[in-house]
C-alpha cells in the first residue's frame, strides 16, 4: 500500500472528562495515483485526520505510513492545499510557487515554477501579487505551489469550500486534468457529497460521535461525470442515506442540550 493508516486515533485533553476523543480505530489504505475523498459532517474529524497525514497534528494512537515510512512531522513529500489559499502576500505569484523550492538551483526553480503555473493557466499572472487575483486564481496558485514540491501525496482540505459555485466547477475540471497529467495520489476532504462523487475513485464516509469510518464506497462511474447522470444521482442518494443518520444524531444531541438548559 502506498499510503497506509492503521488504527489511528486522535484525542485532546479535556477539562471535564479527562480526554476528548475526536476519532479512533481509523484504518485506511490508499493506492498510488488514487483519488480518495473523505466525506463527513462537521465535527467528525476529517480535517484533523488530513492534518495528521500532513504531520501538522500529533498522532495519539496508531500509525500513518507513506511508502512504508512513518509520518510524524510535516515534509515536502506531502503537499497541502487549505481552504484559504494561505499565499504569502509579500511575494509575487511566481515567488510564492518557488518558495518551497529554495534548495534547488535558480534555473530549476524557475523551470518548475513556470511549469506548474502553466498547468493551472496562470503564467500570465506570474508577476502579480496575491491580492490582485480572484479567490479562485489564488487557490490555483496554492495548488501550483503544492505541486511544485513534487509531493508523493497531495492533501486537500476543503480547497474549494470558500469559492462560488461557478468557480468551483471550473476548478473541479482543472483538478481532474492536473490529476491525470501528474498522476498524483490525492486525499481530498470535503463536506459536499456531489463534489466527492464527481471527483473521486473512492469516497470514505466518516461518522461523528464517536468519529469513525462508516463506509468506503468505490465510485466506478466513467469520467467526466455529469451531474445529471443517473449513476451519479444514485450514488449521491446512497451516501446521503448513510449520512442522514449521522447528521440527525448531531442535531438530536444539540436539541437535547437546549432542552436540558
Amino acid at each position, binding site marked *: 500500500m502506498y499510503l497506509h493508516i492503521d488504527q489511528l486515533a486522535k484525542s485532546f485533553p479535556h477539562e471535564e472528562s479527562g480526554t476528548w476523543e475526536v476519532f479512533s480505530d481509523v484504518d485506511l489504505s490508499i493506492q498510488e495515483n488514487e483519488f480518495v475523498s473523505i466525506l463527513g459532517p462537521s465535527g467528525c474529524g476529517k480535517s484533523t485526520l488530513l492534518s495528521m497525514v500532513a504531520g501538522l497534528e500529533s498522532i495519539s494512537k496508531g500509525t500513518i505510513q507513506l511508502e512504508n515510512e512513518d509520518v510524524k512531522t510535516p515534509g515536502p513529500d506531502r503537499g497541502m492545499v487549505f481552504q*484559504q489559499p494561505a499565499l*504569502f502576500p509579500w511575494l509575487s505569484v511566481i515567488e510564492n510557487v518557488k518558495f518551497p523550492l529554495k534548495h534547488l538551483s535558480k534555473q530549476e526553480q524557475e523551470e518548475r515554477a513556470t511549469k506548474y503555473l502553466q498547468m493551472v493557466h496562470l503564467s500570465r499572472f506570474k508577476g502579480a501579487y496575491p491580492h490582485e487575483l480572484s479567490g479562485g486564481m489564488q487557490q490555483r496558485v496554492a495548488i501550483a505551489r503544492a505541486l511544485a514540491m513534487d509531493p508523493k501525496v497531495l492533501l486537500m482540505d476543503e480547497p474549494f469550500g470558500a469559492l462560488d459555485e461557478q468557480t468551483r466547477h471550473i476548478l473541479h475540471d482543472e483538478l481532474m486534468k492536473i490529476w491525470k497529467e501528474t498522476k498524483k495520489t490525492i486525499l481530498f476532504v470535503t463536506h459536499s457529497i456531489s463534489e466527492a462523487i464527481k471527483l473521486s475513485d473512492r469516497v470514505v464516509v466518516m461518522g461523528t460521535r464517536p468519529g469513525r469510518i462508516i463506509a468506503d464506497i468505490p465510485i466506478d462511474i466513467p469520467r467526466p461525470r455529469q451531474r445529471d447522470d443517473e449513476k451519479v444521482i444514485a450514488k449521491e442518494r446512497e451516501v446521503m442515506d448513510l449520512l442522514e443518520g449521522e447528521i440527525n444524531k448531531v442535531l438530536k444531541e444539540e436539541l437535547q442540550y437546549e432542552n436540558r438548559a
Partner: protein
Amino acid sequence: MKIALKRIAFLIVVVGIWQGIVALGIYPEIVIPPPSKVFFGMVDGFSDGTLIKAILNSFKHLFVGLPLAIMIGTAIGVLLAKSTQADETMGMYLISLQSIPSIVWVPFAILLFGLNESAVYFVVVLGGTFVMALNVRTAIHSVPGQMIQAARTMGVKGMKLFFKVEIPASLPHFVTGLRLAWAFGWRALMAGELLSNGPGLGYSLRFAMDFAQMEMVIAIIIIIGFIGATVDQLVFSKLERTVMKRWGLLKN
C-alpha cells in the same frame, strides 16, 4: 484639489475669528496677539536662526532616541510574543507602563540624570519603547495560523520559519508600531524639553513663556503641530499605506 480648498477656507475662517477677537479689544495684546504678530514672530525666529537651531536640536534628540526605542521595543515585543512564560510574567506590566503619560517620567529623569540632554533622551526612549513593544507583540500574534501551517507543510521550521514567514507576515502591524512610536516619541520629546534643559523646540517654548512672549508661544505650538502632522503624513502614513497595499490589506 477640492479638499485642499476646503481646508484653506477653514483656516482663513479661523484666522478671521482670531483677528475679530483681537479687534474687539477685550484682551490686551500681550494675552492675545494678532495673527500678524505671530506670523512676524515666526519669521524673525527663522531669520535670526533661533527657531532653526531649536528644530534641529529637537530632531537630533529624536534621531538618537527613536531608533533606540524602536530597537528595544522590538526586542521586548518579540520576546513577549514568542515566550508565553515572558508574556505571562511581564505582559501585564507593559500595558500599565504604556498607560503612563511620558511627561510623568520627566521629574524621574531629571533627578536621575540632572537637567541635561540625557534626561530628554531617556524620556523619548521610554515614550516610544512601550507602544512599539505592544505593537510588535500584536504583529507576531496576528500572523494567520494557516500561513504558518502552509509554510510548515513545505518543510520550513524554526528560525527560517521566523525570518522567512513570521517577520514579513507581521510587517503591516510593525509599521503601525513605527508610526505610533514616532507619535508618542514626539510628544515625549516636547514634554522632556519643556521641563528639562535646551536647546530644543520645547525649551524655546518655555523660554518664550518665561519672557511672556505670547506670539512666540503660539508660533512654536503651530510649528510643533505642523512638524508632527508633516512627518506622519510624509513618512509614516505613507510607509504604512505602501506596506498595507502590497500586503493586500488596503483596497485600491
